[in-house]
């Protein structure tokens, strides 16, 4: 397709943040152009295969990684229409009010420039539009909000087994809040609970950009251009005037706009802003504070696995899990061990035999006949759960530009990340707690995994003070107000829950402000 020469709004990226903001702005009457670097995705492309699912992951310009705890960009990021949300597991809990005021309440980390109460209407709005299944009453830790519009996910073998472990330890479980249909919702089908969420959901039961907000955006008149990478954001004085892209003919082309929204995920946004430096903005766009790229975060994954005598049906159910526990979400719940931060348990996640999160990979020490024996036992009685451990914001964890460049001459991103000791201590505490829960559930064997990186946040943090943040609470760059950032890069802290629901609530709020 030939690109228009201008639009009211250019949205760069078609993932969770970009699709939400594009839909809202287009429905509000704006002429919206969505520029997506990757290819189209069709439902028929989403073959049920763990190996196939790797096509949905990042395969663009390499992201170089450094530090003791790399953020795992290639695993966490996505490529193509829908971005990383096309392989996300649709676990959609809300952040807690205390997550928004860590600095105020604990004199640690950072505050958000908004409160939970300000974001709550947008959580409720996105929840109504996308659909979430769950049981609000059973989540006795749940912040205020409308009840879930759909009943909860059914329990399968491993969910039933692990729930007994939590009960024996005096802990609670509730159905995991999932943006997955347990009944027909807004014209979309019901989940079949076959555990293929991360291969893409061709039946539309899982709320992702392709099933919810991109269709709304297109229906409202937005234009989606694929395989059109943006290589520079243009500015004149203190305003952006548009972007420079590589078009379908391989030629560089400028497209003008009144507003540019960057929604290319937590590493590519700061990369593009740094790489777009010019004489008016020598340190990069939106970087008068010097904070651009800093406070990169990734949840530590507390992986606990075990074998049971019972049939656990390990491949059945949603990929994100069947149950949740947030009993110890308080930031100081494990303070005695030097830990600080929040976490939740995602319990009884559907697994496959293979792949990075698969059954075999939980025991990389086994080979030969030992792995064959283990796989036979695990196919019958494997269970697992994952703690989502908050990563405290550290200024030196950051995105910078490498000396290496991609095929279009844009410097590659270097993502440096080392978790702080309070985060490491909290991760260790979750493993101890998890092992105890498995033992209480009657596991015949229990083991834990390495400190994996899950989700990527920060790098373009929001705040009230232009001297210490990149954007305001609407994602508008302090020094370029018509350049808007969307996505998890805005998070000043990472909380202990999955980020996608919050990303979309923030995007809906930003869109409201832009339309006002």
């Amino acid at each position, binding site marked *: 397709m030939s690109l228009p020469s201008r639009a009211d709004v250019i949205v760069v990226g078609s993932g969770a943040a970009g699709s939400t903001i594009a839909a809202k702005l287009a429905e509000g009457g704006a002429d919206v152009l969505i520029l997506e670097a990757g290819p189209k995705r069709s439902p*028929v492309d989403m073959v049920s295969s763990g190996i*196939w699912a790797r096509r949905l992951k990042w395969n663009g310009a390499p992201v170089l990684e450094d530090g003791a705890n790399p953020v795992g960009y*290639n695993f966490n990021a996505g490529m193509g229409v829908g971005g990383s949300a096309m392989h996300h597991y649709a676990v959609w809990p809300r952040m807690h009010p205390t997550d928004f005021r860590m600095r105020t309440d604990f004199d640690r980390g950072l505050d958000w420039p908004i409160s939970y109460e300000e974001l709550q209407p947008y959580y409720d709005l996105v929840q109504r539009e996308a659909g979430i299944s769950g049981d609000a009453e059973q989540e006795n830790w749940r912040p205020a909000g409308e009840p879930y519009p759909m009943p909860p996910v059914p329990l399968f073998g491993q969910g039933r087994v692990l729930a007994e472990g939590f009960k024996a330890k005096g802990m609670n479980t509730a159905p995991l809040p999932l943006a997955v249909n347990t009944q027909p919702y807004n014209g979309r089908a019901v989940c079949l609970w076959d555990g293929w969420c991360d291969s893409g959901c*061709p*039946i539309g039961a899982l709320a992702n950009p392709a099933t919810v907000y991109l269709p709304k955006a297109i229906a409202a008149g937005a234009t989606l251009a694929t395989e059109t990478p943006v290589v520079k954001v243009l500015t004149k004085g203190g305003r952006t005037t548009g972007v420079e892209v590589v078009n379908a003919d391989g030629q560089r082309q400028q497209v003008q706009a009144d507003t540019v929204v960057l929604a290319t995920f937590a590493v590519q946004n700061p990369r593009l802003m740094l790489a777009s430096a010019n004489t008016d903005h020598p340190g990069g766009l939106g970087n008068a504070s010097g904070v651009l790229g800093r406070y990169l975060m990734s949840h530590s994954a507390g992986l606990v696995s075990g074998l049971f005598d019972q049939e656990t049906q390990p491949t059945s159910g949603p990929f994100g899990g069947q149950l949740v526990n947030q009993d110890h979400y308080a930031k100081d719940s494990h303070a005695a061990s030097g830990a600080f931060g929040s976490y939740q348990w995602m319990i009884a996640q559907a697994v496959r*035999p*293979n792949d990075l999160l698969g059954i075999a990979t939980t025991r990389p020490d086994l080979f030969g006949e030992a*792995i064959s024996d283990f796989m036979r036992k695990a*196919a019958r009685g494997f269970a697992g759960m994952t703690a989502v451990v908050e990563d405290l914001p550290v200024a030196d964890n950051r995105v910078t530009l490498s000396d290496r460049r991609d095929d279009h001459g844009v410097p590659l991103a270097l993502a440096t990340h080392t978790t702080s000791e309070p985060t490491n201590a909290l991760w260790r505490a979750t493993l101890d707690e998890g092992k105890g829960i498995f033992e209480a559930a009657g596991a015949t064997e229990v083991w834990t995994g390495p400190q994996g990186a899950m989700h990527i946040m920060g790098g373009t943090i929001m705040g009230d003070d232009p001297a210490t943040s990149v954007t305001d609470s609407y994602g508008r760059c302090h020094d370029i107000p018509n350049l808007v950032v969307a996505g998890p890069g805005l998070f000043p802290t990472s909380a202990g829950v999955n980020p996608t629901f919050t990303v979309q609530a923030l995007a809906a709020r930003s869109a409201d402000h832009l339309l006002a």
Partner: protein
Amino acid sequence: MGSSRRRFVGASGAGLLTFVVGGCQREMTPGQAREAGADLQTLSSSQAELIDALGKQLVPGAAEAGLSHFIDHQLAAAPDEQLLMVKYLGVPAPWDGLYRDGLAGVNAAAQANHGQDYVNLSSDLAGELAAALAGGSIEPWQGPPAGLFYFVLRSDAIDVVYGTQAGFERLGLPFAAHIVPPDGWIA
């Protein structure tokens, strides 16, 4: 209801692996490609033989499932089509060097310890050296980190043995696909 919807979305033409046999392109599984003696595109025949010998020690059934043809095919694919698990591990592409250097390291260790290439070792000695690779104690070692090479090759072997529809069935697990991979598709 569920099965009818599966049938509805079940027609997919995506993802067959194409191998060359006798100058003709054919779509088949890596295991079929191995049986048919399909041409290798990236690896040498001795490297493929070593992969299968090592894969057999790491994950029984890997050689028969076509491990070497799977890796060879993936290394020859365009970057956005490559599906090896190494892409998740923060190792910059291209990855053929990692495989070649790792294999050379295994052979060098076999020669240093036993005076033979790995593929000529007895089953017991091949198993001992594979265990040393897995445990990080293989000596002498030159090449990528031994632990990384082990993890990568073992993951590939797990993919071909257990990541396919046949692999699920071998374990008695339901392969309840939304879109069933075509017969020739690896998974």
